[in-house]
């Protein structure tokens, strides 16, 4: 099983991603509502995969992606955000994210994006 950390300031979105992933190859090891919580959970839960919102209080997703990559660049991060401009997508990828899924999304789009994200991941 791949350990998955879900980061989003919306409880609804966190639970939705959790529900979508729970019947697949992912084990949800943590739910974080901002970047600071996410960093703490990355240290404690050692996830293989992270879904990351961008607009969050305390620490935004771009800063969090950068900090996670400095700690462990093997973690695969899928940004899941409503910010739909190209520049933000490119910035997230430059900071180390491996994929970008724009909100709103449906369950199939999320599953596809996560499957592409973990392709070739050797656990």
């Amino acid at each position: 099983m791949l350990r998955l950390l879900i980061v989003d300031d919306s409880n609804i979105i966190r639970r939705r991603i959790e529900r979508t992933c729970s019947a697949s190859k992912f084990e949800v090891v943590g739910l974080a509502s901002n970047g600071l919580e996410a960093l703490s959970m990355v240290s404690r839960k050692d996830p293989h995969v992270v879904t990351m919102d961008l607009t969050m209080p305390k620490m935004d997703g771009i800063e969090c992606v950068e900090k996670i990559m400095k700690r462990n660049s093997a973690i695969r991060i899928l940004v899941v955000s409503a910010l739909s401009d190209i520049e933000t997508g490119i910035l997230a990828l430059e900071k180390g994210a491996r994929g970008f899924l724009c909100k709103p999304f449906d369950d199939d789009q999320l599953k596809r994006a996560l499957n592409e994200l973990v392709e070739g991941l050797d656990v």
Partner: protein
Amino acid sequence: MSEETLKVFIDGVVNYFRHTSDKDVKVGSPYLVENTHPTVFDYTGIIGVSGPYKGTVYFTAPKILLKHLLLSLGEHETSNENILDIVGEVANTISGNARSEFGQEFMISVPVMIEGPPTSIQMPQELRSYVIPIYWKAYSAAVVICLESSSS
């Protein structure tokens, strides 16, 4: 505010409901209101905007619509906390999606969610807002745009 600017937000709300529910929204004709008499339903998610535009964008809806929307998303816990969460998430998604047209300079805040009418701080009294009425299933709601050009 131009018709093209309004269309960005209309497209945003149509796109939101298309992806998250089994029924599309119908959009009514936008109209202007004084901020002294804001259009509000039971719950409102407000996004502060800065950059080339400044002001607010909000999504406001009755409790029953939001409960129904939660169920459509597979969320059976329709507590007050989750209702506030979803009204903020809709506002955040519509505003965030607007960046595909306005670019990354269109800066948005994290959502502020409220039950009841917004305060005069959240809605500048000297400005007017465009109300975009939406109809989903048997319910009415609205996206409200109060933006002015930063250069004006």
